[in-house]
C-alpha cells in the first residue's frame, strides 16, 4: 500500500503550468517545486534506485540490494504495469483501435496483464505487499482523448512504451545481486522495447509520423511537445567512459544515438506516470 499512498500524495502535487500553455502542452512538464515534492514523498528504497550515494546506504556489504529495496523496485514496476495494462484494456474494449492494428494491441495488452500478475506473484513470494492499482485518468484531465481519437491512443501508447523501457533500464542496477529478479526484470524490459518498436512503426504506418522503431536523438517526432520528457537524454553520446562514441566509430551521431537507449530515474518516470493518476 505504501506505493499507492505515495502516488496518491503525488496526485496532489501542483505542477507549474504556465498561463500561456494549454494543459495539453504542459502536461508532461513538471516544475522544480513539483520535483521537490516528488522526491520528498518517495521512500528511501525507491530514491535509492537512482542515487549512487543513496544506493550505497541501502545495499548490503556484498553489494546485493536488500529485499526491501527489491520489493520497492518491483512495486514501482507494478505501478507502471497497472497503468499500461489498464490503458490497453480500455483501448481494446473502446473500439478506438483500427482493425488492422488489433492483433498488435491485443498482444501488447496480454503482455502488460501478464506482467501485472507476474510482478504481483513475485512480490508476494518475497513476502512483500503488492501495491494496489492507482486510479487512472488517461485523458490527463481532458488533455487527451485516447479512447475516442486513435491518434491520441497511439501517441500515448508510444509514450508509455518508450517510458517503460527507460524505467526498467533505470532500475537494473538496483537489482544487481538478486539474480532471478534482475533476469526477470530484463526479460520484461526487452518485451517493452519490442512493444515500443512496434507502436512507433505503427504510428508511421498510420501516416501519423516518420518514426522508426528506435529513437533518434531526443526526437519525439510528431508527438505533442509535452511528451519531450520521455525523450530528453536519449541524444547521449557518452558511453562507458568514452566521452563521444562518434570518435571511435564511423557510424554517424544519429546512428550512435539510436544504438544506445538511455535510462530514466524513478523520479523522472513517476513525474510522467503521475499525470495519468487521479
Amino acid at each position, binding site marked *: 500500500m505504501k506505493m499507492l499512498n505515495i502516488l496518491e500524495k503525488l496526485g496532489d502535487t501542483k505542477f507549474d503550468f504556465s498561463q500561456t500553455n494549454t494543459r495539453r502542452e504542459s502536461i508532461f512538464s513538471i516544475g522544480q517545486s513539483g520535483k521537490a515534492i516528488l522526491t520528498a514523498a518517495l521512500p528511501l528504497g525507491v530514491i535509492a534506485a537512482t542515487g549512487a550515494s543513496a544506493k550505497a546506504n541501502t545495499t548490503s556489504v556484498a553489494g546485493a540490494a536488500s529485499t526491501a529495496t527489491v520489493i520497492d523496485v518491483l512495486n514501482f514496476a507494478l505501478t507502471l504495469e497497472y497503468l499500461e495494462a489498464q490503458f490497453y484494456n480500455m483501448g481494446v474494449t473502446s473500439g478506438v483501435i483500427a482493425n488492422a492494428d488489433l492483433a498488435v494491441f491485443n498482444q501488447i495488452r496480454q503482455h502488460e496483464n501478464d506482467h501485472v500478475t507476474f510482478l504481483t506473484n513475485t512480490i508476494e513470494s518475497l513476502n512483500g505487499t503488492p501495491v494496489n492499482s492507482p486510479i487512472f485518468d488517461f485523458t490527463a484531465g481532458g488533455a487527451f482523448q485516447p479512447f475516442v481519437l486513435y491518434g491520441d491512443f497511439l501517441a500515448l501508447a508510444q509514450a508509455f512504451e518508450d517510458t517503460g523501457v527507460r524505467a*526498467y533500464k533505470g532500475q537494473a542496477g538496483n537489482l544487481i545481486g538478486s539474480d532471478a529478479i534482475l533476469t526477470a526484470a530484463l526479460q520484461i524490459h526487452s518485451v517493452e522495447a519490442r512493444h515500443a518498436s512496434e507502436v512507433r512503426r505503427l504510428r508511421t504506418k498510420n501516416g501519423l509520423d516518420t518514426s522508426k522503431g528506435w529513437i533518434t536523438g531526443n526526437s519525439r517526432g510528431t508527438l505533442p511537445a509535452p511528451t519531450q520528457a520521455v525523450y530528453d537524454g536519449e541524444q547521449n553520446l557518452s558511453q562507458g567512459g568514452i566521452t563521444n562514441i562518434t570518435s571511435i566509430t564511423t557510424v554517424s551521431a544519429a546512428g550512435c544515438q539510436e544504438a544506445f537507449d538511455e535510462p530514466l530515474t524513478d523520479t523522472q518516470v513517476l513525474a510522467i506516470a503521475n499525470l495519468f493518476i487521479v
Partner: protein
Amino acid sequence: MPYDYSLVLKQKELQTIKSQFIMKKENSPEVDFIHQPIGRLGFLKFSGAAVAATGLLVAGVGCKKDDDDDDNPMAEDLGSGDIGILNYAYALEQLEAAFYIQVMATPFAGMTQEEAQILGDLKNHEIAHRDFFKAAIPAANRIKDDLAVNFSSIDFNSRASVLGTAKAFEDLGVAAYNGAGQLIADVQYLALAGKIVSVEARHAAAIRDLLNPWSADFAGNDIIDGNGLDGAKTPAQVLAIAGTYISTPINASNLPS
C-alpha cells in the same frame, strides 16, 4: 545461479580439442579452422605470448588468458569476470555487424525502401556496438577484432533467408544480454548492457514485423512466455547457436556463472 553451463562447455571444448588434435576432422564443426592451420597457429602463438606478457597488468580485473590445462590453445578465450562478459558481447556484436554489412553489400532482389532503411540502420547500430566494445575493452584483455565468420548457410539473395537469419540473430542477442545481466558484477557494465539490449529488442520486433506485418509476431508467443517474459539464455546456450556462424573457436569456460 540457475545456470550451469561450465560443464557443457568443458565437454564441448574437449570434443573440439579431440577433433583438432586427434585429427578426427569429421567430428568437428570448425571446418574452416582445419583449412588454415598454419596461419592461425602462427598468429595465436604470438597473440598468446603478447597477452601473457601484459596479463599481469590486469590481474584481478579478469584475465583474457589463463593457464587452465583444459583450455584449447587454439580458441579465443573470452576470459573471466566482467571482461569475459564484455568479450562475449563483443563476439556477438562482431557477428551481427558482419552479417548486416554483407546484407547491405549484396542486397537481396526486390529489397523495399523500408527494408533497406531498417537493415541499413541495423548495420549501423551493430557496427556502433562492435566499435564500442573494441574501444571499451583494454587491448590486452580483448578477443581478436576479426573473428572469422561462416555465412555459408545463408542465402544473401533470398529475402526469406536474410530476414529469417536477422530474426534469429536479434532474438538471440536479446536472450544473450538478458541471460548475461546476472553475470555482471559492475553496475556500470550492467547499465551498458541494458542500453544495448533494448535496441536489440527493437530490432527483433521490426524484423519480425517485416516478416509478418500486422500480427502478434513482433513479440510472438514463440519467444515470449506466459508470464510476458522475453528469452534469456546462458552463454553456453547462445554460443552453441552462434557457433554455427563464428568459425573461430571460442572458449567460454572461464566466464562467471
